[in-house]
């Protein structure tokens, strides 16, 4: 299945135009590059960011703890001031009824002292007999019964004068508004005897908690205070994020949750000397994590990449694909059958050279074609020449005159013979259509021709034949022997002034058929022999005939000619069997 898809894709891509290919390729590279860039970038950035965030998170948590402790210490100092106040001691040490002078003084002192401190919700001062004075902002319900329980008191006494911090005094103090209170509870000892003389409870507004992280909040950071069982102080709902966080015995722990791009760091910190656990939930923000300079460099790099790839694409398009496309368009004209050269201005590079080569090739092809046409024309002309040489009136009319003379002078038998021969000759000679005939027919034409010529030039020559019958079915181009025989007669024998011989032989030798036309006429000297294949008038008929044979059999080696001036000429036509 995958293979088939890949194959299809490959075929599809192969069939695209070059320009599209380049475009697709560049796009693919850009996409791939960006994707790769993005992932690598994210991976490293996130990793470094995570480390950074986690570390800073710890610091934040500790800092919040310090803030809280610092505030609490301030309050502790205040409670110290109250405890050491003489009016307070007087109230606790002396038997006094409510509304007594001691009580009044104590309250006044507490007011005076606490007035300079923040977060104070209420302050309760108990004597050992649970008589008390208090100051309070807002309404607070006090459940003294809870306080009297042993478990509640034991811890306070065990603190040995130190502060015990409880949320809502473990249920002893409930505000009407429901706002949680932070209760600092400590035993008041006699300064001299160091014996417990009373109990001081300072209830603090939970604002002290919120203020401890006020400065750190924002930027995706949220903090929640919990009690030691991780129950949020301000809310009844448990924080779901805490499910991800493994609660260990450690004072601090943190973990990350969420997906890439939407990560949260969840952490908790058990603040020392307090029953509070601060829980932080921080949304990771890349903007914060990534140094802005690095970000710009990255964007610049990506932009540069895309720019350079685009540039490469444009370059390829402009200097490679476009010229090729134009070249192809120009070349397409050949499809319509015009072997026309491409005239385009192309850069002088490989593509330009391609065009030049293509043009050169076209020139070559045109040359070849015109050569072929030229050759074909020549062949036809030579054939026509040979034909015309005989059809033209000289031969026919002279022969007719000869026959006319015979009719007047000779026995009618001879006239009859001459007329039949003439008819035969012209029938074979003009046999329409086929350019090739059998050697037998060709020799038949020559025989008739010579028979007629003998009537005209009876004292000039004899004709002889020596033919291998088995070779006479070989097909040859028409009228290849007659012009050669005519040459023998007119250029060999007649100028000699003596009776001669024309001999035609056909035989096989070394896998070739040899057709030899021999005459013992005046022959040729070396110079004429060497010029016989020139286009001179002297070689009329010979060159054209040889070229036709060469063309027909597709080889140049089709003839030998030898001659001795004054004695003979021998033309040997060699054709493949």
């Amino acid at each position, binding site marked *: 299945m995958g293979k088939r898809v890949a194959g299809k894709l490959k075929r599809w891509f192969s069939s695209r135009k070059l320009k599209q290919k380049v475009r697709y390729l560049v796009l693919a590279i850009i996409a791939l590059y960006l994707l790769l860039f993005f992932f690598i970038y994210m991976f490293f950035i996130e990793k470094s960011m995570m480390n950074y965030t986690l570390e800073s998170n710890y610091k934040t948590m500790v800092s919040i703890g310090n803030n809280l402790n610092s505030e609490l210490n301030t309050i502790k100092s205040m409670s110290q001031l109250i405890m050491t106040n003489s009016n307070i001691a007087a109230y606790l040490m002396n038997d006094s009824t409510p509304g007594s002078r001691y009580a009044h003084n104590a309250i006044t002192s507490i007011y005076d002292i606490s007035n300079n401190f923040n977060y104070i919700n209420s302050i309760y001062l108990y004597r050992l007999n649970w008589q008390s004075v208090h100051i309070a902002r807002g309404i607070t319900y006090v459940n003294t019964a809870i306080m009297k329980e042993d478990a509640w008191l034991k811890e306070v006494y065990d603190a040995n004068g130190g502060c015990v911090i409880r949320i809502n005094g473990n249920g002893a103090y409930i505000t009407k508004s429901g706002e949680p209170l932070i209760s600092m509870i400590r035993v008041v000892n006699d300064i001299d005897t160091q014996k417990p003389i009373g109990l001081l409870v300072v209830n603090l507004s939970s604002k002290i908690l919120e203020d401890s992280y006020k400065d750190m909040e924002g930027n995706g950071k949220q903090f929640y205070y919990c009690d030691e069982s991780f129950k949020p102080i301000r809310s009844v709902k448990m924080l779901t994020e805490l499910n991800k966080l493994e609660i260990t015995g450690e004072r601090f722990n943190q973990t990350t949750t969420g997906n890439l791009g939407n990560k949260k760091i969840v952490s908790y910190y058990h603040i020392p000397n307090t029953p509070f656990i601060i829980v932080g939930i921080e949304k990771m923000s890349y903007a914060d994590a990534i140094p802005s300079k690095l970000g710009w460099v990255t964007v610049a790099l990506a932009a540069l990449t895309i720019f350079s790839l685009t540039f490469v694409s444009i370059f390829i398009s402009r200097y490679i694909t476009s010229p090729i496309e134009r070249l192809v368009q120009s070349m397409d004209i050949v499809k319509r059958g015009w072997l026309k050269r491409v005239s385009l201005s192309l850069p002088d590079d490989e593509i330009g050279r391609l065009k030049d080569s293509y043009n050169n090739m076209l020139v070559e092809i045109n040359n070849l074609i015109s050569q072929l046409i030229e050759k074909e024309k020549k062949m036809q002309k030579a054939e026509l020449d040979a034909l015309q040489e005989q059809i033209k009136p000289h031969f026919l009319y002279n022969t007719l005159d000869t026959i006319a003379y015979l009719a007047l002078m000779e026995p009618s038998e001879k006239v009859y013979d001459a007329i039949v021969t003439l008819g035969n000759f012209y029938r074979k000679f003009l046999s329409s259509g086929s350019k090739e005939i059998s050697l037998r027919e060709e020799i038949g034409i020559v025989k008739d021709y010579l028979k007629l010529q003998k009537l005209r030039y009876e004292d000039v020559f004899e004709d002889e034949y020596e033919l291998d019958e088995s070779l006479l079915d070989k097909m040859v181009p028409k009228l290849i022997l007659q012009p050669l025989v005519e040459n023998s007669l*007119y250029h060999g024998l007649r100028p000699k*002034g003596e009776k001669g011989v024309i001999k035609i032989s056909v035989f096989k030798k070394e896998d070739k058929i040899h057709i030899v036309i021999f005459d013992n006429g005046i022959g040729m000297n070396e110079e004429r022999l060497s010029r016989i294949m020139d286009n001179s008038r002297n070689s009329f008929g010979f060159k054209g005939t040889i070229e036709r044979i060469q063309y027909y059999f597709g080889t140049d080696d089709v003839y030998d000619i030898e001659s001795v001036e004054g004695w003979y000429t021998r033309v040997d036509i060699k054709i493949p069997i």
Partner: protein
Amino acid sequence: MVRVMIIDDEKAIRSLLKITLEREKPLIEVVGEAASGIEAINTIDIYKPDIAFVDIKMPFMDGIEFSRLAIKRYPDLKIIILTALKDFEHARKCIGIGVSDYLLKPISYEEIKNTLKKVIGQIKKQPESDESCDFTADDGSSVARIKDYIACNYRDPEINLTSIAQKFGFNASYLSRLFKQKTGTGLNDFLLKCRMEKAISYARTGTLMYVTANEVGIPDPNYFGKCFKKYTGKAYSEYLKNPVG
């Protein structure tokens, strides 16, 4: 009576033409034939034709070439060219050299008659000049010079009685008689003798006939062969094989 000479390389055609022309007797008389221009040059002074039928296509010296020569030499001679080709180029050439008319092959009796009628009308028959036959002494030295001239120029195939007479400022028939009287031989015979003696010496060295023919100013080997046989009584080839005397 109009004297006609037929010059054609094909015997059959000469004969046919002769037979045809003889139907026009006694107006016409065929006085001679020649198988080539070369032969005609050598015999025309003997036949003295008024009209010559000349085949245009002949070996050794074609009809045009012969006609040009003949018209120059015999201004009164009417030449009728025989051709198988009705070709403008040919016609133009013929008219250009002063040929009277031409006849197309194959020969038709009707055309011959018409052409003859036309050409005969052009003949200005001059009365036979009957100059006095008293030869001056000076003529003797002329004959000697002419003999020298022939001995030097017998290789030239174009010379004949008329061309020599014109060269030396004589009337042809006058020169003929003068030469015969002074030397006892006709001028033509003298020229032939020069050529044949030379030919014999060539034959003795085994020279091929057509080469010899060329060398002695009769470049038509057929005519040369006839002359040689007539002069020596032997064929040239026999002479080659058996060179005696």
